[in-house]
């Protein structure tokens, strides 16, 4: 039954995942963490980290990983989990396949019309909100610890967040480099 829900969920994510990989992350997070509890918040963040560091589109990477982890967390064996990741990835790509072929076949000429463009114009500010929500939802105890639990880890986490934010936004440091440096900082300060 989990495969059926995985399929439906990732099909939905593929169908409504506007705004590229990061826009899709808020959907994946909402569905897999908040709604179905297939993953906890830290697992989701780890998946995003690994998806960032490995080649390929972030959407595909995280769907493959989330599909695997969801089935593995439900207590199934490794081959079953592999099937879970195949289900999630296939379901994520399927709406694209249907939509893009339909557009190629008949709607290419309508894509530039005013009505279609105004729908996209409405979506653009909303995707900003989706991303903001994904960021806020990830500010959890699992990712940052809490001042009452572990004051040292909490403030180091906040520091790493601020450093990565400024580093990538203002100094344009490569995100993968920032992840590697944060891993090193974690090893030194949070061991």
């Amino acid at each position, binding site marked *: 039954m989990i495969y059926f829900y995985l399929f439906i969920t990732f099909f939905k994510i593929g*169908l*409504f*995942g*506007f*705004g*590229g990989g990061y826009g899709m992350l808020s*959907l994946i997070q909402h569905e897999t963490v908040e709604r179905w509890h297939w993953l906890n918040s830290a697992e989701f*963040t*780890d998946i995003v*980290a690994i998806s960032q560091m*490995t*080649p*390929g*589109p972030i*959407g*595909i*990477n995280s769907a*493959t*990983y989330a599909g*695997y982890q969801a089935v593995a967390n439900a207590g199934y064996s490794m081959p079953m989990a592999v099937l879970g990741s195949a289900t999630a990835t296939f379901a994520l*790509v399927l709406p*694209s*396949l249907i939509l*893009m*072929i339909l557009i*190629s076949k008949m709607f290419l000429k309508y*894509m530039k019309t005013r*009505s279609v*463009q*105004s*729908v996209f114009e*409405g*979506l653009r*500010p*909303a*995707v*900003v*909100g*989706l*991303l*903001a929500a994904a*960021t806020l939802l*990830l*500010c959890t105890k699992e*990712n*940052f610890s809490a001042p009452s639990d572990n004051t040292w880890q909490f403030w180091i986490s906040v520091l*790493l*967040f601020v*450093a*990565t*934010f400024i580093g*990538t936004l203002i100094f344009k440091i*490569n995100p*993968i480099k920032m*992840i590697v440096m944060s891993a*090193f900082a*974690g*090893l030194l*300060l*949070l061991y």
Partner: protein
Amino acid sequence: MNIYWQAFKTFFKIGMFTLGGGYAMIPIIQAEVVDKHEWVDKKEFLDLIAIAQSCPGVFAINISIFIGYKLRKTAGAIYCALGTALPSFLIILTIAMFFHQFQDNPVVAAMFRGIRPAVVALIAVPTVKLAITAKLNRYTCWIPLVGALLIWLMGVSPIYIIFAAGIGGYLYGKLARQTK
């Protein structure tokens, strides 16, 4: 060489060797598809990018489907999509199968305690960048604000926000044209 195999191989290479996801892939896809194989011309490629970006789904997959469909209809589209997705799928699967053996290792656990807040920042950065390119003004800035709060505090599904924004955009466009 068989065109299916060649298309598959090209997109497999693109999926295999591009770090950083969708947008980092554009120049590489262009070099392969426009300059090297001449499957589409430059103008058409730019049009396809604009459409693939506004449509839902994974951007690189959308582009590969467009190119594949142009080459050999639906079968071509499937080959290209498969080529793009397969390297990611295989790499992530390998990591997923073995990561759980390492995640309890104290060294790996400490590294991930450092990585997690950094990753949250890496999602915060495109939020800011997108807010800038979306050219929010005092009439539109409430849209992401209300959307984010509904999802964050009320647990509303992002899908409803997307629906509302799409319909809102359509109606607003219609109204703006009528009043002109």
